[in-house]
């Protein structure tokens, strides 16, 4: 065990790594919206998973109770995290595993690289993992002469294509079959030059390529979906079985896991093993679930390491209104139903975590003051589809609104001049904080008529509202407000249908 202090630091450490958007969301979204092929691929894929999910969820009469149970368990874990982590550490260590604590991405990467070097190798195989993507492990290793081979098919496509994942479950969701074939032909060594875009052929090509890697690798790197405190067990859930190869064949297994992935014990798994596959792939059960507890002599990896990653998680935990974002089990249901994600794709969110959960998790991990990330909480129309879909009932819309408040507050007084939005909100606050003020303002309604053309439509609004009239007309306002009509002209109509009171 390393001696990095864990627990609740007085000053939260914010996360670093692939958590930052590089340009404000509206600009990134504008660019991605222009990619019509990506939009078509994404629409098709998300709608397919969406429908599948609805169908399998409807099969369970106790789905809402399961969601409540999942949410309650996670809340319990977050409230008792330090104690559960200690319990987990004790049990994991007792069974021959080694724990390392990493405060941020840099510390975690360094621990992994050092462990790989100790094994005297420069090649590792990888199980798909959000945590290692978050900390930029592959890039870090590459800079130090270590090659990391992704073994999840979609992850492999992204890696070979020198691309970035755009979805947490289906990282290559933005690519179609033909695009995948082209990537394989160009980048995969020894591939059949007559490869077609038939899914089976593509899978066979990937399998041959991966088999060579599995059999030669001495070290594997994985993530984990769950960690059970009462036994020190780790769990990985997957659908291709490649993860299982990584978890059993190499001599050394290094797992990187966020500290929030803990569950009290194995009976809690029962709930999550129903929630996760149904929410993520729309399947009743995932094909492969691997559980491992420490080292078994003569069987499987003989060196088992776990890096427990903070990288902004304790900072998020300290946020009273935002902390439930840590309950996320990375099922991706929220992004599959999000109308914004459907149109912009994952790359527009910059971070490893796209979609609705990304729009709250990234700024929570990095801090809202991290410049461009402050645009993420606004990347939502607050339609609420994500909250409805989330298996652990994370109230994403409420957290989005909370983070918007944090953003506005953090900028108060920091700017020399108030923005147009600041001024508009100030003015509207005055108008809307009294019936008299609003009535006064409504006296100006007839003026709106002047702004409208002969067809009574306003086609161009000034300033920050200009975006609105890019694609929408505004109807001219009426000449009399309701309030005015009520005062001057309202006479009750005679009842036509008497109600019992």
């Amino acid at each position: 065990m390393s001696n990095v202090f864990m627990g609740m630091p007085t000053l939260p450490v914010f996360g670093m790594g692939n958590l930052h958007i590089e340009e404000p969301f509206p600009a990134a979204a504008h660019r991605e919206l222009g990619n019509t092929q990506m939009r078509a691929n994404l629409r098709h894929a998300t709608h397919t998973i969406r429908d599948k999910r609805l169908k399998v969820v409807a099969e369970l009469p106790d789905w809402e109770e399961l969601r409540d149970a999942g949410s309650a368990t996670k809340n319990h874990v977050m409230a008792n995290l330090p104690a559960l982590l200690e319990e987990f550490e004790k049990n994991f260590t007792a069974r021959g595993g080694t724990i390392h604590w990493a405060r941020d991405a840099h510390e975690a990467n360094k621990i992994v690289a050092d462990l790989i070097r100790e094994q005297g190798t420069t090649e590792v195989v990888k199980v798909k993992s959000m945590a290692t993507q978050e900390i930029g492990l592959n890039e870090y290793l590459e800079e130090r002469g270590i090659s990391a081979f992704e073994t999840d098919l979609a992850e492999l496509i992204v890696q070979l294509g020198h691309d970035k994942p755009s979805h947490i479950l289906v990282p290559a969701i933005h690519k179609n079959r033909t695009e995948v074939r082209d990537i394989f032909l160009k980048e995969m060594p020894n591939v059949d030059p007559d490869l077609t875009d038939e899914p089976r052929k593509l899978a066979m090509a990937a399998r041959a390529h991966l088999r060579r890697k599995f059999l030669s690798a001495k070290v594997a790197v994985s993530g984990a979906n769950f960690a059970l405190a009462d036994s020190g067990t780790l769990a990985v859930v997957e659908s291709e079985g490649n993860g299982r190869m990584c978890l059993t064949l190499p001599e050394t297994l290094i797992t990187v896991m966020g500290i929030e992935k803990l569950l009290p014990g194995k009976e809690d798994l029962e709930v999550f093993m129903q929630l996760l596959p149904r929410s993520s792939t729309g399947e009743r059960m995932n094909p492969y679930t691997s559980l491992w507890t420490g080292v078994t002599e003569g069987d499987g990896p003989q060196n088992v390491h776990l890096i427990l990653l903070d990288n902004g998680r304790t900072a998020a935990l300290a946020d009273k209104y935002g902390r439930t974002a840590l309950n996320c089990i990375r099922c991706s249901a929220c992004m599959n139903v999000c109308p914004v994600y459907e149109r912009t794709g994952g790359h527009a969110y910059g971070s490893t975590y796209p979609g609705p959960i990304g729009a709250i998790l990234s700024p929570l991990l990095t801090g809202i003051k991290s410049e461009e990330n402050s645009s993420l909480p606004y990347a939502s129309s607050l339609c609420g589809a994500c909250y409805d879909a989330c298996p652990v009932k994370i109230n994403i819309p409420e957290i989005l609104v909370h983070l918007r408040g944090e953003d506005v507050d953090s900028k108060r007084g920091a700017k020399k001049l108030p923005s147009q939005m600041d001024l508009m909100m100030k003015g509207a606050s005055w108008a809307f904080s009294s019936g008299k003020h609003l009535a006064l303002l409504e006296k100006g309604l007839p003026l709106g008529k002047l702004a409208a053309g002969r067809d009574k439509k306003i086609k161009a609004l000034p300033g920050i509202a200009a975006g609105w009239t890019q694609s929408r007309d505004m109807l001219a306002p009426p000449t009399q407000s309701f309030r005015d009509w009520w005062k001057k002209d309202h006479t009750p109509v005679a009842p036509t249908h008497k109600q019992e009171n």
Partner: protein
Amino acid sequence: MKIALFATCIVDAMYPQTARATVKILERLGHEVVFPSGQACCGQMHINSGYMDEALPVVTNHVEAFEAEAYDVAVAPSGSCVASVKHQHPVLAERCGDSALKARAEAVGAKTFELSQLLVDVLGVTDAAEQLGSHFPHKITYHPSCHGMRSLRLGDRQLDLLKSVGGIEVADLPEADQCCGFGGTFSMKNADVSSAMLEDKTNNVKSTGASLCSGGDASCLMHIGGGLSRTKSAATTLHFAEILASTLDEPVSVTGQVFVGKGGK
């Protein structure tokens, strides 16, 4: 019953006919409608945009305005404003550290209903033709707004009321549960994404061949209507309260080209 009307800022200033229709419906049923004159806005624009300090006086005003009047229940012809009153006001008060305001906001929220909620759940209106004399001989389609659907769980209350109007024909809207892309200042801050969402919504409306898209939220209807108008569609939008208020003697006037529905009652 004494019913306090919360007209909402956008209806008060931009769509007074929607509030007038609401009043008509309730008075026809024999209820007394009062209009607390201190009211202005629910503050959801400020809250949703993150301007919590600016939202506080707006929320306080709403609570005070509705405490000032005696009534049995309050009603608003807008799901999102009711959702804000019920769910956002107490949260905002708590966030601003005002637990007394929180309790007062909760009390006002508990008495506030969305129009279809009030009609169906409280007043027992299920057949608009029969109980309200509603008559509207047009083909319409219906967009259930996100807040009504998800925050208030209105289900099919609005749609069922519409279907019970005399002479009406209601066409199913494809992908009806998808957000229209308005989202308040979202449509300004992320105008491109909002436009892309709106485009799908207006195309779906057009695909039904209906002359009108109805719904329960003036802001969504303003957004969808604005998109229809810009793309030179003959279709337009109309609040469901106005359709319910329309009778044979007093038909609501519909602007633009109108397709006559083939439903019959």
